[in-house]
């Protein structure tokens, strides 16, 4: 028997709800908004399901829909100018800090042990929005540069540079969290 539209949709699209929700949470920073954003995304996808080219990348398509809704409806609420000063952050900022601790036993391992789940989530959420979007799509969702460019509607070079800067900011923030959590003190022991 031929599958109904809803059955196909469930199988192809609904399996991405976890991933969409994870990204929505980091983007909206708010559970209710994230729920609404994902719901709106899937309802829209369902309405336009016949326009989706079967066999193409459903996950990327859904993220593109979600990104558009986010940019149009959610971002506008709290759009403020983004000033980001990365002048003093080196590419190898975090690695450099850890290396500077000396050849003691495995500073990376201690570092990662001192950064908690909530720190990571918070650090992501505190990234300026332009960077946050590409970092989430790359780090959490594993999209390629080209896919991210398509989803967000940017040139691939812009994606790369935002990802690069976003990564630096993220590392700097996590370093600060680790230090606050007592990382240096313990590492010095």
């Amino acid at each position: 028997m031929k599958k109904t539209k809803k059955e196909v949709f469930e199988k192809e699209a609904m399996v991405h709800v976890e991933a969409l929700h994870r990204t929505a949470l980091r983007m909206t920073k708010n559970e209710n908004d994230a729920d609404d954003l994902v719901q709106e995304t899937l309802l829209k996808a369902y309405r336009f399901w016949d326009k989706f080219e079967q066999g193409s990348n459903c996950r990327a398509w859904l993220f593109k829909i979600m990104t558009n809704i986010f940019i149009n409806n959610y971002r506008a609420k709290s759009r403020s100018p983004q000033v980001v000063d990365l002048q003093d952050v080196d590419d190898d900022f975090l690695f450099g800090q850890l290396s500077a601790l000396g050849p003691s036993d495995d500073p990376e391992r201690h570092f990662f042990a001192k950064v908690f789940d909530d720190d990571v989530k918070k650090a992501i959420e505190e990234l300026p929005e332009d960077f946050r979007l590409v970092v989430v799509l790359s780090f959490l969702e594993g999209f390629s540069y080209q896919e991210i460019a398509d989803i967000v509607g940017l040139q691939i070079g812009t994606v790369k540079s935002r990802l690069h800067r976003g990564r630096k900011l993220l590392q700097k923030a996590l370093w600060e969290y680790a230090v606050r959590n007592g990382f240096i003190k313990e590492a010095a022991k």
Partner: protein
Amino acid sequence: MTCEEALRHLYDVIDKEASQYDVEEVQKHLAECKSCMARYEFEEMFKAFVKDKAAPSDKADKLKHRILDKIDEESEGRSFGKLGPFRFSAVAIAAAVALVLCVGASFWAAGYYRYTKYIHPFEQNHFNGGWNIIPANADSESFQPCSPEIMKFISNDLSMTLGDVQTVGYYMVDSGFDDIRDHHFAHFKFLHGNMPVSLYVGKKDGVEMPGFEETKVGNRSVYTYDGDGFQMMYWYCGKSILIAVSEDKTMPLPEIIPAVYSI
């Protein structure tokens, strides 16, 4: 490959964007260079760590059920012609606002569509070519509610502002331009349940819509026409006229314009 070159490829390799050739060259270098190896390992760990800590939410299951229920609700709503609780996007409303129908130029003499076999030009476009306009979202994945050209037309030529209002019952599926009798209109296509509604917006100058009845909606006048198998409504907004057309005569057209009242 030098250390500098190896590090230049760092993120491309970590993000799996580097070419096979570069990856192999980098690997050769890493096999001989402890410090670059350490850096690569660290960056890889860092990326995996971030992903691991921001794991998928455990609440997604509940959400999934909620969405599936909503889908059922909507499809039922449609097959039975009920009002679906669709949210207007900001632009859709804008469109609604813009919806002022520019009914026909002066050559649409009174009686043109009442006493002849001709159907009303707007009705005609609504039924056929009207839906076949420059599709603003031909690329439906992008879901741009309307093209920059339309936005420009609305804001520059008509001096209208697209409000950011939410309403229910209609949602926009397409938009484009439609020239009716040499008069330039933006044409927004909505669905109300499963019933299409057309909304035209253009300059009011040169448009005459004979045969309509004035009705008060709040303190605003709208003009309605009860056609044979269709209904139309128009109203003015600044220097624009907004025209709505639907073949569903039970559809409460005035409901699609609440956003317009505040203009």
